[in-house]
């Protein structure tokens, strides 16, 4: 039962529970009309303490498409935070009005902290600094399921900023729970996968490299990520690393014909626009699946998954 639960990191859910969300997402994709009223009378609090386009829009679109409504802010200066209110007090207050809350915050561990203040209102982590982004993981899993038939037995290349990439941390930890997954971590030395993630993996299941060209031919899935300016203290360091990897048509020639290219978006330079027309580039479909999987998640946490 997922009703009333929080989603702070993917490890909060068992694989069979994740599977049940995927199945509901499949049902919603097959019959969106059938689910268009399941959240009627329900309110989602959308608490975005840092900028977001895709995640916020996809959550809000998800709630509206389920027939629910939204309150919230996308700039903390417009809330009582600017008056010095603690997160605990903000959440206790919001719980008086809302049925479910989505929170994005620049500080790591924020969603876990606020979940301790919510008595009955499910909290969904929509990204906490460089830490976790579990609904992007659900999006990624649904995309892999749709394009690769399932989440087992893949060689997954993860490329770019592996140090600060929260979407990547969440995805790697989750995929490692599936059968026969092998990872190839591709990053500049300065942006390698952190120890706290590597320590959770069987050393036989991953290798690390700085060269995308050398490994692209062995991959079933290539997950590209952006080097995030906002995570760097030094602008000089950011400028040095931001164009370290650029996936273009030439590189794609060396890839398997059925490899898929994923990206959590937004991209900057790491995927050349010429790759967009390649049928293996699935990142825009991935963005669409993000909305469906969030619809499924909201419905599950509110316990309203039966069609109306």
């Amino acid at each position, binding site marked *: 039962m997922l009703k009333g639960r929080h989603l702070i990191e993917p490890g909060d859910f068992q694989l069979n529970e994740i599977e049940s969300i995927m199945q509901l997402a499949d049902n919603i994709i097959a019959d969106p009309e059938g689910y268009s009223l399941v959240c009627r009378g329900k309110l989602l609090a959308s608490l975005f303490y840092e900028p977001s386009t895709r995640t916020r829009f996809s959550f809000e679109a998800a709630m509206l498409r389920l027939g629910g409504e939204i309150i919230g802010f996308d700039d903390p200066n417009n809330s009582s935070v600017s008056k010095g209110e*603690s*997160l*605990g007090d903000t959440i206790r207050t919001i719980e008086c009005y809302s049925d479910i809350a989505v929170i994005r*915050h*620049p*500080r*790591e*561990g*924020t969603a*876990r*902290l606020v979940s301790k203040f919510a008595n009955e209102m499910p909290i969904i982590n929509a990204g*906490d*600094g*460089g*830490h976790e982004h579990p609904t992007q993981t659900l999006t990624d899993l649904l995309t892999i399921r749709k394009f690769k038939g399932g989440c087992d037995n893949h060689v997954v290349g993860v490329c770019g900023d592996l140090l600060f990439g929260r979407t990547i941390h969440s995805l790697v930890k989750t995929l490692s729970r599936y059968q026969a997954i092998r990872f190839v971590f591709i990053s500049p030395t300065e942006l390698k996968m952190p*120890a*706290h993630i590597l*320590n959770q993996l069987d050393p036989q299941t991953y290798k690390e490299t700085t060269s995308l060209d050398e490994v692209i031919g062995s991959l079933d899935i290539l997950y590209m990520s952006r080097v995030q300016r906002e995570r760097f203290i030094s602008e000089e360091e950011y400028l040095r690393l931001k164009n370290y990897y650029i996936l273009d048509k030439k590189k794609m020639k060396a890839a398997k014909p059925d490899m898929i290219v994923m990206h959590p978006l937004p991209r900057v330079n790491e995927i050349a626009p010429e790759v967009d027309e390649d049928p293996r580039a699935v990142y825009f479909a991935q963005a669409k699946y993000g909305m469906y999987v969030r619809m499924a998640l909201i419905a599950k946490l509110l316990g309203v998954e039966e069609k109306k």
Partner: protein
Amino acid sequence: MINVSKLKKGIIIDHIEAGHGFEIYKQLHLNDIDDVVVLLKKIPSKKMKQKDLIKIETDLQIDMTVLGLIDPNVTINFVKNGELFKKINLTLPKVVNGIMTCKNPRCITQYEDVKEIKFYLVNEEKKQYRCEYCDAYTTFIEEE
């Protein structure tokens, strides 16, 4: 040399590295108990050259988990009717609550007033613990 009489009941924390005794005294909140507590500093020791020692004359149960973090080499002797009846070896606690703080500058606990942060042991050799909020690894370093 100062002599302290033999303990009839209570706990002797022995083989404390010289200089760590007061930190243990503070972390065990020994100032808050009404019983007799003696802290001896820099006692000559054959094995350690110098050591600290704490004697607590009490019936209370004292949570010793923090000792493993500060000085895993100490010996804890429990005394009853003037006789040693139990001796325990320390191990690092699996979970530490309210003693450590997270050192990750991006962790929310650096910005909000969070009491009693839980840390989970991840690497015994390196004495590393994982923050329950941000998952960053940290170690317990005693105050000098």
